[in-house]
């Protein structure tokens, strides 16, 4: 009779901790009975038994964290194998009956049942482990099996609870589910015979990030129904919480798998901002640039020239991307963030980039991003400057391999050709994936961003 083991309660569960036992040694356990409460690090769940028999002993202590698959309790064959009543201490040695040195379970397992007898038992639907053998050394004989069969079906065995069967899923779906932290069991498949396929997993993963953010909640109109508003707020809070969980799992995976390295440099923005002011002077309000547009333009062009920053790390290998699909981290009002892509950003002039940026930010906040925008950035830029900090060292969005950060534009004393002046400067940072590049290439990237920003008219 096998042990009860720490089950996996989710694809990302690696270990668990028994926080409460729901059965005691000596209790009879059916398949499907709840036996313990387990803390999975994410939540506390009740776990069920996959075995039937008498709980002989606990194999782990309360509060002890063990890897998935570790035996946590021992179950022996039947109530008859075990003396009634619980043993004196909770952590007891296995109760023994048949032999002085081994549990009855061991005896049952080692009892000789020749293959022909096993075959007969199977055909007659008799469980040989539950038959007393009359042969030599307790061996089960043909007659024993036939007697057991004529005594009636295994009526004493309780029916197995209908286990929630995991859905059929394709190999690609399983791989993606693992990579993206999606629980296959919760998906509805669209593949052959309703199997869950890769796109179903992808949609589920993107759906998490696409859920309408709080900022998208329509403003209450004057005289609006208060209850409606409250219901909407509650839903918004729920969405925010779910978005937070999704970001958490994505970032945890990124930090776990990507060996990040970080670089930082300070860039003089005086030419860029001067150029921008000149441009803006002739532009209507709706077309004016903000500094972010220039920073994005420079980043996209630099990414084009340093291919190790631009692409995806998939299946153990880096796949550089020809085009630069620039992810833009957009903070959502009400919490959370998304990083949709501006496609082919390296080919957009600052003005075009500006309108693409406004468009994508507006839609991100309204919860109307397109699927491709969510799924295919090749490098991401985060610009926390508006919030007042000077630098940001971000976490790379896996499977991308680089994240560029810009802080606030600040005026600083700046030495130029032996003289001191006051210049607007910005701190540009790079978080990059060491599996793909080294500091030298990363440094080249930031240096390029700097160079490009010194000649804004060429952007």
């Amino acid at each position, binding site marked *: 009779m096998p042990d009860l083991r720490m089950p996996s309660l989710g694809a990302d569960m690696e270990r668990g901790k028994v926080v409460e036992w729901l059965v005691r040694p000596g209790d009879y356990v059916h398949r499907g009975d709840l036996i313990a409460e387990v803390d999975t690090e994410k939540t506390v769940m009740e776990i069920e038994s996959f075995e039937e028999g008498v709980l002989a002993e606990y194999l782990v202590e309360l509060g002890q964290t063990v890897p998935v698959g570790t035996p946590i309790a021992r179950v022996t064959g039947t109530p008859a194998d075990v003396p009634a009543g619980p043993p004196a201490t909770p952590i007891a040695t296995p109760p023994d009956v048949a032999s002085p040195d081994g549990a009855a379970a061991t005896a049952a397992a080692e009892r000789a049942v020749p293959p022909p007898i096993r075959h007969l038992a199977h055909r007659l639907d008799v469980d040989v482990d539950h038959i007393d053998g009359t042969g030599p050394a307790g061996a089960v004989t043909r007659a024993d099996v036939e007697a057991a069969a004529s005594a009636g079906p295994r009526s004493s065995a309780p029916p197995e609870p209908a286990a929630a069967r995991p859905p059929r899923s*394709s*190999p690609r779906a399983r791989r993606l589910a693992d990579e993206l932290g999606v629980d296959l069991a919760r998906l509805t498949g669209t593949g*052959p015979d309703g199997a869950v*396929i*890769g796109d179903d997993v992808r949609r589920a993963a993107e759906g998490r990030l696409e859920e309408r953010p709080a900022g998208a909640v329509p403003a209450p109109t004057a005289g609006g129904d208060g209850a409606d508003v409250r219901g909407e707020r509650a839903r918004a809070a729920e969405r925010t919480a779910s978005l937070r969980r999704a970001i958490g799992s994505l970032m945890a995976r990124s930090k776990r798998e990507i060996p990040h390295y970080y670089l930082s440099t300070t860039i003089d923005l005086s030419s860029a901002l001067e150029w921008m002011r000149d441009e803006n002077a002739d532009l209507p309000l709706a077309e004016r640039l903000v500094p972010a547009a220039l920073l994005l333009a420079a980043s996209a062009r630099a990414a084009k020239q340093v291919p190790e920053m631009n692409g995806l790390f998939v*299946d153990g290998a880096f796949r550089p991307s020809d085009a630069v699909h620039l992810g833009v981290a957009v903070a959502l009002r009400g919490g959370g963030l998304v990083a949709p892509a501006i496609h082919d950003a390296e080919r957009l002039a600052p003005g075009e980039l500006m309108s693409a940026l406004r468009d994508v930010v507006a839609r991100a906040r309204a919860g109307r991003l397109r699927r491709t925008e969510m799924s295919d950035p090749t490098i991401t830029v985060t610009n926390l400057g508006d919030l007042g900090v000077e630098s940001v060292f971000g976490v790379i969005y896996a499977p991308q391999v680089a994240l560029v950060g810009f802080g606030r534009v600040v005026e600083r004393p700046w030495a130029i050709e032996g003289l001191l002046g006051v210049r607007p400067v910005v701190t540009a940072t790079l978080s990059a994936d060491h599996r793909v590049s080294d500091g030298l290439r990363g440094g080249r990237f930031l240096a390029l961003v700097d160079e490009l920003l010194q000649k804004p008219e060429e952007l």
Partner: protein
Amino acid sequence: MRTTYREAMRAAMREAMQRDERVFLMGEDVGRYGGGFAVSLGLLEEFGPRRIRDTPLSEAAFVGAGIGAALGGMRPIVEVMTVNFSLLALDQIVNNAATLLHMSGGQFNVPLVIRMTTGGGRQLAAQHSHSLEGWLAHIPGLRILAPATLEDARGMLWTALEDPDPVLIFEHGSLYNVEGDLADDAGAVDIDRAVVRRAGADLSLITYGGTLSTALDAAEALAADGIDAEVLDLRSLRPLDDAAIRATVAKTHRAVVVDEGWRSGSLSAEVSARITESAFFDLDAPVGRVCSLEVPIPYARHLEEAALPSVARVAEAAREAVGAGA
């Protein structure tokens, strides 16, 4: 230039003989009769009986003679009328042509090209209609080609003759009359790569030779249902272009292999196995196969049509793979 598969193949042989005096053609009826499928029609008049040689009806003899000529420094093209007949020469092909380089410790190459017709669809019954190229693709030491387009009919032969080792070219009998445009300057093509004949996103139809058009027609039919099929033409059956097979499956996540050979122990089985070996975690559906039914190819037209891979069967397998089966 408007031309046919047959004429493109003939142009390839003519060019080869003009370019290299070591090249000659031999086989049953290739001279006076113009070839069992009229591929060499007119070549005897052009090149004379020393280079266009009619042979006795003994495949073992003339394939063996081809091997000897190749060992002696010539560049023979041997035509075997159909792959069914090549079984008579199997000893020469498998035990000699394929092995001599290895058995001589690398001293003797066998620069031989064997052309043969394969496949059914022409009511020639069970002894002239089988697709046995998958068998020969099992043999190390041979290179197996399956030109499916005019460009490949025109261009594969020269590249095959350049190869220092034996190359077998399988011409599907239904292709000879296929007509189309061929560039005036069409010439040698590579014989290593599989080529995507139709790009698609939803599934890959992997095929070669005579069933390329079946797969392309099925892809059109599927497009009407909104299923975007990619069609990969293997072109070389040995060696297989593993990278191309992997790439198309990585792109579409579903594959149906279309092969006029029988399913059991077939080239389609090999392709399917390689997909499972190298692209398992890219798959969204089991690899499907559409092959000839496991019977000797029948003579009666309706039975023959029922036995061979059809557009309808390919489309059905494709729908099943994308989960849109009826």
